């Protein structure tokens, strides 16, 4: 029962603050509302008993990506402009397409097989970090190392592009 209430709270937080990101007139308000979207998604991860992913979400998205985006907003502010222009373009066609996509997805999800609704053989959950670490260092060792190299290259490339 508490899980149901918590799910609706986090879902409403996620969707409403994402709507603010899309429609707010100020870029900085959009950035701050993105914070609540990421928090809501992290809450949904906790409800799905994905503790490690929830912590990674908070650390990477809120601690890293959001800070980067806020820096991007502030560094690209034109000193002569009083307000950051945050207008929208082609709103009605885009709204129509997005509504159509949402409708199709929701119809497909709700018409699909009924046995999706049940949690299958709930194991005793004592945190996923141990198993996740074992998976990362055995089955998924190659993608894990490649991701490390990718991060190194991305950081070097970002520094190079931004300094030039």
């Amino acid at each position: 029962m508490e899980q149901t209430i918590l799910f609706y709270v986090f879902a409403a937080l996620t969707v409403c603050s994402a709507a603010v990101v899309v429609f707010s007139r100020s870029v900085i308000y959009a950035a701050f509302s993105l914070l609540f979207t990421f928090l809501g998604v992290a809450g949904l991860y906790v409800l799905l008993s994905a503790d490690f992913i929830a912590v990674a979400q908070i650390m990477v998205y809120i601690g890293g990506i959001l800070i980067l985006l806020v820096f991007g907003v502030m560094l690209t502010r034109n000193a002569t402009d009083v307000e950051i222009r945050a207008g929208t373009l082609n709103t009605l066609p885009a709204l129509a397409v997005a509504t159509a996509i949402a409708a199709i997805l929701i119809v497909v999800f709700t018409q699909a097989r009924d046995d999706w609704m049940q949690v299958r053989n709930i194991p005793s959950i004592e945190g996923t970090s141990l198993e996740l670490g074992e998976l990362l260092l055995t089955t998924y060792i190659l993608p894990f190392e490649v991701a490390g190299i990718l991060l190194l290259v991305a950081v070097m490339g970002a520094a190079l592009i931004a300094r030039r």
Partner: protein
Amino acid sequence: MLEIGLTHYLIVSALLFCLGFLALTIRRNAVLMLMGIELMLNSANINLIAFSRYQGLMLDGHVLALFVIILAAAEAAVALAIVLHIYRTHNTVEADRISSLKE
């Protein structure tokens, strides 16, 4: 109230995906378009975690979601660097005013 099932999470992620798509299409500011991309990546991650949970907590979905988070971080760093560079050369970050390939 009915039990929260997989469908509820999928609907939240569908809504989040469409909002990200909207941000990507209707916004002119490049930083806001990046925020839209992050929203879409987050919705894909919710799907991965939800399916992994409702298959009886198989952790392969978690590993895939972790790689998506890693890629999102790399993408944000490189994209922000490109946006800063565009701002320096064009003095604007509005996507519809950046139309020249060569100065």
